[in-house]
């Protein structure tokens, strides 16, 4: 390692590598937790992209017709089935939760602990609502005979893509709800009074990312 006093840097081996990349300089002028969350989110982007590209490949290569999503995800409230209505409601629920999260971050930086706590709680409730509706969707499709390896509507791959992509996203939402509740409780307990409220922005980044992924799933899996 470099000698901080003399500013000397090593010339060879692992130490030279570390010195060249650190050089006692900070690349990202944000709290380290926020930088780490961003790096995690970039890697998570690649995971979801692999799923969606895998879906693209499965859908392009299959010679069986792709099931009509608009009819399969239709829901009837007494009258005629309304196409894709549950998915649309889920989209609005998630966007609403993103809005309350953005406001929680804002009030966090103002130091308004009460508003921050309640706004994070509202966000978590919307998140849990989303997961509940997704469970309803899964049960409905499972009852209709959709399985990861088969389905009665057309291309076999439809089942595997549906459970894989929405399942992994639902898992992210569930994890997010737990993370939100944890942060909300610590905010109320005054855990961040001296540390600062960056944590609210960090959990917010994660939450907005989950909403962002849904934007792509909604477009590619449900609409196209």
């Amino acid at each position, binding site marked *: 390692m470099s000698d901080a006093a003399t500013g000397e840097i090593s010339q060879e081996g692992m130490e030279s590598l570390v010195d060249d990349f650190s050089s006692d300089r900070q690349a990202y002028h944000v709290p380290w937790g926020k930088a780490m969350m961003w790096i995690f989110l970039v890697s998570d982007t690649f995971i979801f992209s692999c799923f969606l590209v895998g879906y693209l490949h499965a859908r392009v290569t299959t010679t069986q017709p792709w099931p009509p999503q608009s009819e399969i995800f239709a829901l009837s409230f007494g009258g005629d089935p309304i196409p894709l209505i549950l998915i649309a409601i889920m989209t609005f629920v998630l966007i609403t939760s993103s809005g309350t999260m953005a406001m929680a971050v804002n009030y966090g930086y103002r130091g308004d602990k009460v508003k921050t706590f309640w706004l994070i709680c509202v966000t978590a409730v919307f998140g849990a609502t989303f997961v509940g509706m997704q469970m309803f969707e899964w049960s409905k499709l499972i009852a209709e005979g959709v399985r990861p390896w088969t389905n009665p509507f057309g291309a076999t791959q439809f089942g595997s893509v549906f459970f894989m992509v929405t399942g992994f996203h639902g898992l992210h939402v569930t994890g997010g709800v737990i993370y939100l509740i944890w942060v909300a409780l610590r905010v109320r307990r005054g855990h961040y009074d001296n540390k600062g409220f960056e944590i609210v922005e960090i959990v917010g980044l994660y939450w907005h990312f989950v909403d962002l992924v849904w934007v792509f799933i909604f477009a590619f899996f449900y609409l*196209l």
Partner: protein
Amino acid sequence: MATAEGEQHPLGIYYKIWGLLFVLSAFSYAVDYFEVQGAMRWALVLFFMVMKAGFITAFFMHVVWERMALVLTILGPPVVLLLLIGLMAVEGAYIEETRFNYRGHDRNAVALGPDDLHHDETHHGEENAH
């Protein structure tokens, strides 16, 4: 740390973005509801998708207010995904063609909807699981 004052923005901007996201989502749902098909469907759905993703990333995730080093770290790497998407689309189309041409798959197969299956009331999904 620059954060304390750096991330403080008036609430008005969040309300505006929030409203915009609602409107854009309603528009993408309308594309399906009014059964717009073909190239127009693709164009509209992708346009609304990119707008929504952009607004969420830029304002809700504060990327417009970040320094260039962090912005490029976030937005740079995912660009290579365009190459993966392009390669898989070309390769997938080729595999589909070989299945039609050499494996005898039916080019004119038609998809079924739930309505086609529910005429028989004795049908239960569990029977299909094996």
